[in-house]
């Protein structure tokens, strides 16, 4: 499902990723990890560094290998080749119960024959924590997620959101090295999911947790993460901050998978430092900034987010293409306008306060050179 996205705020103030400024120190390291089931290669020669204290999301379409990677981290699936290290020590041959990683499963996997308190106490009991200390830590943890009033209930007597919180608490109470979550919010309804996203972000910041979070919901990844690894067919397409992923996708797959975009094919023509002119195959010339190297004459794709496209009656902008309004759709907070002209089609999201555009009206579609991305086809 592609939810239309509001772009993430440009400033990082108050965002969770305050932790990850500066160089990342590798805490968990996946080196050249491959995994095949039979002849089918699910994860292909993957390198991934996870920094201490970061919230890393693995985002990708169904079947791209996200769960497999998480299961290799947790110790349920053995990599076919490669090494996993934690603080420099190899852990890929350690059994799951000796890895000290908290895992939150999509279906929560709460023990049905134990109460909430017993579920949360389980990892402490397994670690031989004394009864009194365990009771105290359980009480504190349960209190932190506001479940004290239901601590003596069985999982079957809890709502989905409560089960989710119990699963999370159980995975946190023993202070694991890292918390692995496989689509933990997938089973919740939209409202509760958004609430839990905030709660999780808050917990991450407050406790300084290292979290690896699997999701196929791009909005979720953009709101919660310090970094996002976008997966496709067992390989990382791009690993960067949510802002960079959204504003400067490096591959066509990322540009199309995250949010919505207008994509034009063309050739790099005249270069002037980072500023370049690109001749679109459809005819018009577009001006853009390059963030990666392109040779003159190389084929390139220009990606422009719909909310970066403006509509104007005059052509005095760096990029202005004469277009005709095909269709306008009211979307509450904005108008969605479909445009065609100069041999291309595109979508613009325009503010409702600017003038209303009638279907069939002639206009110029404009966008800033630094608000579009040039990627290799």
């Amino acid at each position, binding site marked *: 499902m592609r939810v239309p996205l509001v772009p993430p705020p440009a400033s990082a103030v108050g965002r969770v990723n305050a932790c990850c400024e500066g160089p990342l120190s590798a805490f968990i390291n996946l080196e050249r990890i491959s995994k095949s089931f039979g002849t089918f290669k699910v994860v292909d020669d993957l390198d991934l560094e996870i920094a201490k204290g970061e919230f890393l999301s693995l985002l990708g379409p169904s079947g791209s290998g996200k769960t497999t990677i998480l299961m290799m981290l947790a110790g349920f699936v053995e990599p076919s080749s490669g090494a996993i290290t934690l603080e420099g020590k190899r852990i890929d041959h350690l059994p*799951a*119960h000796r890895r000290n990683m908290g*895992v939150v499963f999509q279906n929560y*996997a709460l023990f049905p*024959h134990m109460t909430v308190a017993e579920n949360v106490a389980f990892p402490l009991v397994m670690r031989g924590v004394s009864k009194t200390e365990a009771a105290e830590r359980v009480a504190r943890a349960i209190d932190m997620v506001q479940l004290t009033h239901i601590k003596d209930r*069985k999982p079957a007597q809890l709502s989905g959101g409560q089960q989710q919180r119990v699963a999370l608490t159980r995975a946190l109470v023993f202070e694991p090295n890292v918390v692995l979550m496989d689509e933990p919010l997938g089973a919740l309804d939209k409202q509760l999911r958004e609430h839990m996203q905030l709660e999780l972000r808050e917990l991450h910041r407050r406790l300084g947790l290292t979290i690896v979070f699997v999701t196929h919901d791009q909005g979720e990844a953009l709101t919660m993460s310090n970094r996002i690894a976008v997966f496709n067919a067992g390989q990382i397409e791009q690993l960067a901050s949510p802002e960079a992923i959204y504003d400067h996708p490096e591959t066509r797959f990322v540009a199309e998978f995250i949010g919505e975009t207008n994509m034009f094919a063309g050739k790099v023509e005249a270069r002037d430092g980072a500023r370049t002119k690109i001749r679109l195959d459809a005819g018009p010339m577009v001006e853009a900034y390059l963030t990666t190297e392109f040779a003159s004459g190389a084929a390139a794709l220009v990606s422009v987010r719909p909310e970066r496209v403006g509509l104007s009656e005059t052509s005095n902008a760096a990029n202005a293409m004469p277009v005709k309004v095909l269709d306008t759709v009211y979307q509450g907070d904005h108008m969605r306008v479909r445009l065609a002209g100069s041999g291309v089609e595109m979508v613009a999201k325009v503010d409702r306060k600017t003038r209303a555009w009638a279907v069939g009206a002639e206009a110029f579609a404009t966008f800033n050179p630094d608000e579009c991305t040039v990627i290799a086809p």
Partner: protein
Amino acid sequence: MSGQTSPILRIAQIVFGVAVVFFLLAPIVAILPLAFNSSVFLNYPIESFSSRWFGELQSNDMWRRSIVNSLIIGSGATIVATVLGTLAALGLRSSQLPFASAIRTTFLMPMVVPAVVLGVGMQMLYGRLGLANSYLGVVVAHAVLCIPFVLVSVSGSLNAMDPWLERAASSLGASPTRVFRRITMPIIMPGILTGAVFAFATSLDEVVLTLFVAGPNQRTLARQMFASIRENISPAVAAAAFLMIVGTLCIAGLVGFLRWRSQKALKPA
């Protein structure tokens, strides 16, 4: 039931249902009152009621020993079959195991192989192993018959269990043995108990294998009833039947209660 059944069909259904129930219950109902008959013949009409045949079961050495034997062999076979059947179900759960389905079929074979065939084979084997006419031999023979029931019932429980629970437990620090003790076993307990009841009932009821492998010392209650009905038909057989039915009902009731309790532990009150 869809409302459009014709009245004739409806009546036929009822008659058929009643007939089936009658055929199931009639032999049991017919034999039970004879246990209290004071007459020396296993026959109606009952002239007067007495409990003399129960006294006979107690005082007659043959009967008393056969009851004790049934309890010993039944318990032994139940324990062996429950442990092995549960282990087999756990082992056969993993689909990676080569020949898993062939092995499963082998375990289930005693359910379909004629007991006579099994009996002849066992008698020959036991002769070689020196197990003939021993308690151990009979216990093993009965256990072979009982394992399929445990296997089927425990496998059912395992299939119904969320496989992620065990992964969750090990991610929380539980070693494989502790995962089994703390998570798997409590959750499949209803299946284990059901299997155990079937195992005990099967052993209690078993005659054919016993005929082949048991000596006079291991004569079970079922075997003794079989013998007594051919030698001297006495109402002691009816009294023994009565005991067997009551005993079976008691165990079934007890296990039903245990199952209910452990199932309640899994579900909301």
